[in-house]
């Protein structure tokens, strides 16, 4: 029970607080910019060439205000925003009028989650194991070469790396399709369908795994180099414990733990990376939806994506934090 009182409950409270602050920020920041999305939308419609007479503008303004939840006082709007979030009703989207935003999100979110979970897991495990071994044998020449390669990859942003991968593997050597997987096909789970998914997801996943892996590699390498100098490792070495055993049971296990906390902290940025990579490869996920929403000025859609992402990421972090004690024997035994 003490675990619940000292760990579980405070963590849940923190979770709710972050969501509260996040949504409040999403509500207030756009209002602080002093820009009116209603006028923006009307200006956009007019700039596209269609002329509107004053009465049409007025009625359009009324409709838009209602759609954006901009009616009433600020407080009423704020309450309305929460009501919309609890019912997951973000109004209709503009670029696929009148499909509700919630429906669009429901179609695209599973794709993003699939890519996000797989690529994050693979890059975390791969980066940590490689980084751990390279850190342990940091004086070997292969470790130094690997380190130099990672040093080049690490600072490249997601979009640029994605474009390079796209140019290389889809245009120069036409090994993979340059995006454009169709959604809405009947999802029959057979081998052909799975192969199609793999073909279209390979390049985005590759980009994410390499970039994410590079960053885990470096952090892990640094951690292991420090753990390696600790007394218990030197003791094990002098005591003649097998090298493999030292690496996997002593060094890696000790250095992996802080990496789980790091993963929880970095999850928001990792997720942003996934969205950006989806745009490069036209992968049918939230990122592509965001791209379409932004380029067509679909304010409701972008709002829905932002709120949903905040909920998804904070929940993922919460789950990670709550299962952390399972990995850490020191906390578990308390």
């Amino acid at each position, binding site marked *: 029970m003490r675990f619940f009182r000292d760990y579980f409950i405070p963590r849940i409270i*923190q979770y709710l*607080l*972050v969501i509260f*602050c*996040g949504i409040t*920020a*999403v509500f207030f*920041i*756009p209002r602080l*910019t002093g*820009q009116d*999305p209603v006028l*923006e939308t009307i200006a956009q419609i007019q700039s596209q060439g269609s002329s509107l007479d004053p009465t049409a503008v007025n009625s359009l303004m009324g409709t838009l205000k209602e759609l954006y939840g901009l009616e009433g006082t600020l407080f009423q709007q704020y309450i309305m925003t929460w009501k919309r979030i609890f019912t997951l009703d973000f109004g209709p989207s503009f670029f696929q009028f009148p499909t509700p935003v919630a429906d669009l999100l429901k179609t695209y979110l599973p794709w993003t989650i699939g890519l996000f979970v797989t690529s994050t897991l693979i890059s975390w495990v791969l980066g940590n194991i490689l980084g751990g071994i390279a850190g342990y044998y940091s004086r070997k020449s292969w470790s130094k070469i690997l380190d130099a390669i990672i*040093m*080049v990859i*690490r*600072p*490249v*942003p*997601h*979009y*640029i790396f994605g*474009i*390079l991968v*796209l*140019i290389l593997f889809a*245009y120069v050597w036409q090994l993979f399709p*340059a995006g454009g997987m169709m959604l809405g096909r009947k999802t029959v789970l057979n081998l052909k369908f799975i192969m199609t998914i793999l073909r279209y997801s390979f390049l985005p996943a590759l980009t994410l795994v390499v970039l994410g892996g590079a960053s885990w590699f470096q952090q892990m390498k640094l951690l292991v180099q420090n753990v390696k100098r600790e007394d218990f490792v030197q003791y094990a070495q002098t005591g003649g414990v097998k090298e493999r055993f030292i690496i996997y049971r002593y060094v890696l296990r000790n250095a992996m733990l802080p990496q789980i906390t790091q993963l929880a*902290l970095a*999850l*928001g*940025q990792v*997720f*942003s990376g996934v*969205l*950006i990579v989806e*745009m490069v490869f036209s992968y049918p996920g939230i990122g592509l939806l*965001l*791209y379409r929403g*932004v*380029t067509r*000025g679909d*304010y409701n859609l*972008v*709002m829905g*994506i*932002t709120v949903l*992402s*905040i909920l998804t*990421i*904070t929940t993922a*972090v919460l789950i990670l934090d709550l299962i952390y004690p399972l990995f850490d024997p020191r906390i578990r035994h308390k």
Partner: protein
Amino acid sequence: MGALRDLFKDYRFAVGFFLLSFLFFLVIASFFSPYDPIQWLQVPRDKPPSWNHILGTNSKGQDVFWEATFAIRNSLIIALIAGLISRIIAILVGFIAGYKGGFTDRVLMGITDGLLVIPLFLILVLVAMLLREALTLVNTGLLLAFFGWAWDARTIRSQVLSLREREFTFTSVLSGNSTLSLVGKEYLPLTIPLIFSTLINNIAWAIGMEIVLAILGLVRLEIPTLGTTLQWAINYQAMLLGHWWWILTPVVLTILLLVALYWFSVSISEYLDPRIRIQRIGVK
């Protein structure tokens, strides 16, 4: 001069320095450009690299090389504004949270952690969507500065936390120094290496972010930056049409710039880190 000689022994510093000087040279060159960076149809369109146009021309009728010099200059302006302003926020938050501790610390770090957990990129896009027309170079920089300080405030705070427990803090407080002079004269110099390395990381982040905002069409697209150059190339199907000189120029320049900045910062922060310096002397 001895320090500089030591630094140049590190190949990463040497390469970073060389690349940065080269890019800086391009920035200087932009002031002598024979073409206007914004006007269209100044040269024949879609020509591959030749003697007259060393990086070819694009579908807008502009010289790719001279556009690129403006792009680097403008991207660096945005990134520097973002980096410097967000440093001020990060230093203030980090120092106050770390030095005050207790309730202040918990509130400030609560906000910071909240900002970290939320996918900030999306809020950035949401705001940029509303400000679209106003996003000139300076405003883009300010917008990025406003969102780019959380991680670094945390790093600076943890450094201050450890400084606060050192003996010289007590000596200073007991000898009647004001908090301001303790923080300004003792802590700040000791955290400068850390702040410098966070600055370079932040500049790199800002350059990457500007590219994404430009791809989304959220900045003023007529101003050439690394992001907008890429955006035009993609928009005009440069990849499909095989205009590799147009699309690869911003891609390669961005990679060169970011790799140079990263190597530069890693080697300087390693040089300034006394623990690693001792290791290096030990090896000799």
